[in-house]
């Protein structure tokens, strides 16, 4: 690098600095610093004339570096950066020395304040003398988004983006979009029917020109970074051409294979060629390749030859600028709660199964009948916190169970007014608009019997009745309740396979939920730039929260996809590939996954690095350095502030 010709500009800030710091003395001392060829002081450097002085001096003295000693950079860094650039210098060849907030304003002792000011300036001079010039980093943004998960969260985000004119790829694992919400009967607290509000949205997604849906598909590989990701999507064969299928159902009728219907959570049977539910999107039959025996009967009866049992899976590649992860949740496996007899007694079911019983399109056409014998249910027991808030299962609260259980009880009572409904609960958590009122209504209007306490055991007695034994923790009494049907409000667990998470560099918390950058301030972003999260994959939440968060995620994605290029500070980490030994310590400490291994050595992804320098301090061989704050510079700065001491 050429010999440093540093100009130092000392601001009086009226009396703010000059009143305490002996500016003349400072100017004298600073002039002696190595590399300093010009020193000027002025009453208000930030004023136009002040800035002019800098601009002129740069040209006149042909300075190649500038230090402005004034207030804190957070106030006027940009001001002087512009001036420096106007003078024809790169802003990266300029530093500010804060001698007001860090000296004149905090010390009365003029001598000491002056000496300290000199040291602070000396540090800036030392640093700037080694500063290099860098160009801002720009990266092209692909104006296209990938949404993973076709539930209410994914659909909402997809629609928001699509409506803003962004092309969206929506990837759904199952044969139809709609997610868990499609299984629900009514939704609390308003009790409007889930299908009625969901299916129009599904249709909208289906026909939206900006949305491309891949069902029966999963994301298997992700490359690239913010603004420009390349993803591989594995599309399993539907074996029925959605464009041809007319839903005539002939194929279904002739199909000899019967298997439990997962959409009804096993409460009904379906065929190997089937449609998950009438309003499924895409609106077409699908062949269950796992169970299909390829007998070929369906082929014979299909009037439009829509069926092709030989269809193979395919891999699709897409380029996107942003990725929204909305893979949702599952219920905690009830089998693990041995004491409740789930999976042993047919009449012990989970909340989603109960939703299906309640659903007009469900296996019982909405009638609440016992799965075991189809008899109507007179006595029903709901067990809340089944798995949740339990150290042995899920330590956390699943949040929505209190509300839907109240809803369940209400709907039971509406259908069986003379029936008895008992709810075992630990606490009632009804935080939300209209929630508390809803629960009160259930307790009072519908005389649902709320018992505070855990059920310790469920068994079938001699008369074939289910018996739930628990303790009422309020009265301290042991309680035994007989029931025809028992509903477990199973906890919520995230549905995000770790493999995909690590491909997306989405950090996962100890329970498997996606980890946001900041719980309060950046709730839909993750450490990896350009990847956003929403819905139950981030934590248990109800539909309204999910939708809110989905729109938030969409908005964040839009913020990114709205730009043609992303421009970023060039002051990031840089690897000396000759020195690097590929020990991976920097990869480990980097909070942004901004460092990757290329040919056995580290390489910084310029678009991801935020320039914190953690890698620099961790590298055992000093191979990775923070631009314009290298080890050499840091040591020079330390020497400078201590000049004349040791």
């Amino acid at each position, binding site marked *: 690098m050429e010999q440093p010709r540093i100009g130092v500009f000392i601001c009086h800030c009226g009396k703010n600095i000059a009143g305490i710091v002996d500016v003349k003395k400072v100017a004298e001392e600073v002039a002696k610093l190595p590399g300093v060829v010009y020193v000027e002081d002025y009453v208000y450097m930030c004023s136009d004339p002040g800035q002019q002085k800098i601009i002129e001096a740069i040209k006149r003295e042909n300075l190649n570096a500038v230090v402005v000693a004034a207030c804190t950079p957070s106030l006027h860094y940009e001001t002087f950066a512009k001036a420096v650039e106007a003078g024809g210098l790169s802003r990266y060849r300029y530093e500010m020395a804060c001698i007001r907030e860090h000296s004149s304003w905090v010390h009365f002792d003029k001598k000491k304040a002056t000496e300290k000011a000199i040291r602070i300036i000396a540090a800036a001079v030392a640093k700037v003398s080694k500063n290099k010039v860098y160009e801002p980093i720009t990266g092209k943004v692909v104006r296209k988004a990938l949404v993973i998960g076709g539930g209410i969260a994914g659909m909402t985000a997809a629609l928001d983006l699509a409506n803003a004119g962004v092309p969206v790829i929506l990837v759904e694992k199952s044969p139809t979009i709609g997610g868990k919400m499609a299984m629900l009967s009514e939704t609390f607290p308003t009790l409007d029917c889930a299908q009625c509000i969901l299916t129009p949205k599904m249709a909208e997604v289906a026909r939206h020109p900006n949305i491309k849906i891949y069902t029966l598909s999963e994301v298997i590989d992700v490359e690239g970074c913010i603004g420009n990701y390349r993803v591989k999507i594995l599309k399993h064969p539907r074996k029925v051409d959605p464009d041809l299928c007319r839903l005539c159902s002939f194929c279904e009728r002739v199909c000899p294979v019967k298997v439990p219907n997962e959409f009804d959570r096993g409460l009904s049977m379906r065929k190997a060629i089937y449609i998950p539910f009438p309003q499924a999107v895409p609106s077409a039959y699908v062949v269950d390749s796992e169970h299909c025996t390829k007998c070929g009967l369906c082929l014979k009866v299909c009037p439009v030859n829509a069926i092709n049992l030989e269809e193979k899976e395919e891999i699709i590649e897409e380029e996107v600028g942003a990725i929204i992860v909305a893979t949702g949740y599952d219920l905690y496996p009830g089998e693990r709660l041995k004491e409740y007899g789930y999976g042993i007694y047919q009449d012990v079911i989970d909340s989603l199964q109960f939703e299906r019983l309640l659903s007009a399109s469900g296996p019982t056409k909405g009638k609440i009948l016992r799965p075991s014998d189809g008899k109507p249910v007179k006595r029903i027991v709901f067990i809340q916190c089944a798995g949740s808030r339990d150290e042995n299962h899920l330590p956390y609260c699943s949040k929505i169970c209190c509300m839907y259980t109240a809803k369940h009880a209400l709907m039971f009572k509406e259908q069986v007014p003379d029936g008895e409904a008992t709810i075992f609960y630990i606490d009632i958590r009804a935080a939300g608009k209209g929630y508390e009122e809803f629960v009160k209504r259930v307790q009072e209007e519908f005389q649902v019997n709320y018992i505070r306490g855990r059920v310790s055991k469920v068994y079938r007695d001699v008369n074939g009745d289910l018996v739930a034994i628990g303790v009422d923790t309020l009265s301290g009494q042991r309680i035994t309740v007989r029931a025809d049907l028992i509903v477990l409000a199973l906890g919520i667990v995230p549905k995000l396979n770790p493999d995909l998470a*690590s491909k997306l560099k989405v950090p996962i918390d*100890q329970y498997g939920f996606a980890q946001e950058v900041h719980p309060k301030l950046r709730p839909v972003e993750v450490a990896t730039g350009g990847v956003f999260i929403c819905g139950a994959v981030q934590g248990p939440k109800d539909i309204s929260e999910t939708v809110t968060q989905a729109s938030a995620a969409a908005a964040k994605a839009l913020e990114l996809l709205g730009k043609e290029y992303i421009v970023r500070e060039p002051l990031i980490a840089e690897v*000396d590939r*000759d*020195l690097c*030994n*590929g*020990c*991976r*310590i920097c*990869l*480990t*400490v980097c909070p942004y*996954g901004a460092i*990757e*291994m290329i040919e*056995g050595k580290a390489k910084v992804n310029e678009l991801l690095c935020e320039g914190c320098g*953690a890698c620099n*301090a*961790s*590298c*055992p*061989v*000093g*191979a990775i350095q923070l631009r314009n704050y290298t080890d050499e510079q840091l040591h020079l700065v330390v020497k400078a502030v201590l000049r004349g001491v040791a």
Partner: protein
Amino acid sequence: MRVMGKLKLAIVYGAICGGCDVSLVNTGEKLADVLEKYDIVYWGAAIDGKADMLEKLDKIDVAIYMGTVRTESNLKYAKLIRDKADLVVAYGACAVYGGIPGLGALMEPEEIMKIVSSTVTTESKEEIDLPEELKLPRILPTCTSLVEILDPDVMAPGCPPGPISNDGLLKVLIDYAAGKKPEGKIIFGEEQSLCHECPRKPKDLSKIVMPGIYRLHEIKLEEGKCFLEQGILCMGPATRAACDMPCIKNNMPCIGCMGPAPGVDDVGLKYLSAIASILLVDKEKELLENGLARHLDKIVDPLGMFYRYTLPSSYITKLSIKRRKKRG
């Protein structure tokens, strides 16, 4: 009976363990060949001839120094070869970095004698007044390496130097005999750290997390698995590759006898920072300060671990000794 035309080679000692001698002898025939071209004017362990031979010579061509510098006489020999020898070789970890005895760098003579003379079995003491000739040489206030006191031309690291250092040295000796004096300073070994060559790559190739700190006696080490990922301190990341990894192949972590890798100015400080950084990096927010401190406390002897062979060259050692002097 020096054959004319042969070059003069001296092998002199500081405070040694003899391992360097053996390592050199172990090169067997190779050494014999090289020695065709040299006259060993001095080598305590292997040939007769007294130190005065060394002093009497006005010029030595090559001098190989083994051992660390702990006593006045170690120092005297060091200066002697610097004055007389054309090519000075620091051979072995002790000569290059201070080595194991370098761990005594912070101990002053009085302290050492106090401890040595108070071991459980030391029960009888006697002092006779001695003529000068029988007096013992003074112990230096610190223990240091040849490199710290003079500027050798060639450095052969290792405890003891392995094949790479030995082959390197023998080649230098042959070249020198052929009139080719090495240009600049030579240090034998790779321009890389051990991790670069180590077969024990981390499981997840995108990171290397220490799951805690375990001491050698606490766990059974898994063969083939990165030591750091087993919570074992391994000096690999900061240590020069020059050894063919005998310890690691023997399922023991590196303790850094080859000295700092290129780019490392102070091996202890750099390594400390690297280790602290990757320790439980995935659990920081769960464990918080106290939790992390508890794990860090299992590094009971950072000095002895991080500076096992390089204590005299540590910045903190120099600071601490300078301070001792100033404070008197």
